[in-house]
């Protein structure tokens, strides 16, 4: 089975090989390997970028292949981060509390320990009680399960309601924006149980591994991110390779035609929406320990829009396009906003990239959409000699998400 997938998609092997070489290269040049070339903080940046690439692959699956322009997938990404963040914060605070109480003359009871942990974690929001959603925060296994389960269930419930009433196109996009906005606003509240706008912090410290330097932790997470991207990419390639891929591309280009073939379109959309939400959750769970902090601002509606922009710039409808888009835009973005880009002095005005980067990104998005709808990934076509078939100017289907002629390949 997997062999035929790879045979039909040589790009998967090429991608995995490049990813493997990249991982090896970064590893050898990292502080962990005793080299100075790649700093620990840059290893973290690269690891985070791989996670963004993974969520972009999920976005491409749901938008580029199934034609559902979800502008809410960063909510699932954030939820994944929160789920793992709860365990990281709980366990680490537990360790700190236990060692500080160890000196006490009377050994503390379990209730006292839990109370002290609650005080530590929720002091900032004026509380000390553990909210019910933290009930399993001491169990790594359960919180890891929640990383996929919580985003998956939210996507399932949301998608069931939306797809069943046949909400499509712009209306669906707006609805997903509303979902992520509502979630962000809820989490901003102090009594949401997730520390309001403080979010969860100190996530870069792994409980019980205080003696391990960050140079090691960072490289572990880098490997894990690369592995997750490789698996997510291969899984997505497998999903879109066979008849399932045919059906979801058919849904994208002409939803009602697929219905008249007898396919339950809503079930397919729900499947893709939910699976991609779970992939997004995993990506988020790997991202935030490398970022060190997660707060509700992370899942603001704009984040999900960026995600769509990455995929569009990289080239939707091809998985490596999503990876290229996410990696390229997020690295360039951190270069511009990190103050490394030289200011441009126009004489009468100095362009500071920190302020102007977003304008540049917006303009590139418009330019790509109008002039090169295949995105950066389209450059690969120049090399492999793929051309667009001549459709005499006709687009591929009547549906809102359908591919335009300029995006098609022969």
């Amino acid at each position: 089975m997997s062999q035929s997938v790879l045979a039909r998609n040589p790009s998967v092997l090429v991608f995995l090989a490049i990813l493997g070489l990249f991982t090896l290269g970064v590893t050898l040049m990292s502080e962990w390997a005793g080299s100075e070339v790649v700093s620990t903080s840059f290893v973290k940046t690269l690891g985070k970028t791989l996670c963004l690439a993974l969520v972009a692959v999920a976005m491409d699956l749901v938008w580029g292949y199934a034609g559902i322009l979800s502008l809410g997938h960063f909510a699932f990404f954030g939820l994944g981060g929160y789920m793992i963040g709860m365990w990281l914060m709980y366990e680490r605070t537990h360790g700190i509390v236990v060692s500080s109480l160890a000196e006490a003359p009377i050994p503390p009871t379990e209730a006292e320990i839990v109370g002290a942990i609650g005080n530590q974690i929720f002091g900032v929001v004026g509380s000390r009680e553990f909210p019910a959603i933290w009930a399993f925060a001491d169990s790594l296994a359960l919180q890891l399960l929640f990383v996929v389960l919580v985003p998956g269930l939210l996507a399932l419930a949301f998608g069931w309601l939306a797809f069943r009433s046949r909400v499509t196109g712009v209306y669906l996009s707006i609805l997903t924006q509303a979902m992520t906005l509502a979630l962000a606003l809820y989490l901003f509240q102090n009594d949401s149980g997730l520390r309001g706008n403080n979010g969860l912090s100190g996530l870069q410290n792994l409980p019980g591994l205080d003696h391990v330097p960050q140079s090691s932790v960072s490289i572990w997470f880098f490997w894990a991110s690369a592995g997750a991207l490789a698996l997510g990419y291969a899984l997505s390639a497998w999903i879109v390779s066979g008849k399932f891929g045919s059906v979801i591309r058919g849904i994208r280009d002409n939803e009602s035609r697929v219905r008249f073939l007898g396919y339950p379109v809503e079930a397919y959309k729900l499947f893709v929406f939910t699976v991609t939400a779970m992939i997004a959750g995993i990506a988020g769970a790997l991202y935030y320990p490398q970022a060190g902090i997660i707060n509700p601002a992370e899942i603001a509606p704009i984040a999900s829009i960026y995600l769509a922009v990455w995929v569009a710039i990289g080239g939707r409808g091809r998985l490596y396009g999503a990876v290229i888009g996410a990696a390229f835009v997020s690295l360039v973005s951190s270069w511009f906003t990190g103050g490394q880009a030289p200011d441009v002095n126009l004489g009468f005005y100095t362009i500071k990239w920190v302020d102007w980067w977003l304008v540049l990104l917006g303009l590139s998005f418009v330019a790509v959409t109008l002039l090169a709808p295949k995105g950066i990934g389209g450059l690969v076509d120049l090399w492999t000699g793929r051309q667009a078939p001549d459709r005499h100017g006709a687009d591929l289907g009547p549906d809102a998400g359908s591919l335009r002629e300029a995006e098609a390949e022969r």
Partner: protein
Amino acid sequence: MSSLLEVSGVSVSFDGFKAINNLSFAIGDAELRAIIGPNGAGKTTFMDIVTGRTRPDEGRVLWGEANVSLLGLSEARIAREGIGRKFQKPTVFEDQTVLENLLMALRNARGPFQVLFYRPTPGDLDRVHELAGEIGLMDALGRKSGELSHGQKQWLEIGMLLAQEPRLLLVDEPAAGMTPAEREHTTTLLVAAAKSRAVVVIEHDMEFVRRLGCKVTVLHEGAVLAEGSLDHVTANRKVIDVYLGR
């Protein structure tokens, strides 16, 4: 005679305009039927009702031996019941190859999980090749269907319809935009298909209908104006007035 599809007393109005007006229609197993009528007579709307795209305001649509009502069912469900449809404008999946189009249509399990693990069996591929031969697209199997000519797309859509193995085929203007030779081929395909299943063909072209050599139903203003052999209906005064006389 028990019929495969029975439509009775169906009416539909769009913003007060009665597109279908108390229409009744029945077709039996392995029957070929042509529907003719002027533009706007409601022919396409009739197919929309049977396939679940449009809900009628009143009337009944009964299907099969068990006389199941199709009215509450989704489009996909009706398709799985065994009703296939070809649209007036050819609609194939342009970004996909002829092979992919046919494989998607091929009668197999339709659920997401079954489809996810589906790999074409040798039998499936044989069937696809056989169909491709019938519709003259054997050499085009690997081509993106968006590149096909208009007539070839029509055929591909007919091929997809046959691949579904429906019990009832609803075909809307299959010969539009075809050369005379292509039309002839299309007639052959439809007549052959009607040997084992019911086929309803909407067509404007009288020559084409004559070659089908089947019973004809004339629609006008959303209702049946006349029904019978082509010679019988074309001799009908009312039919000449509304349709042929223009």
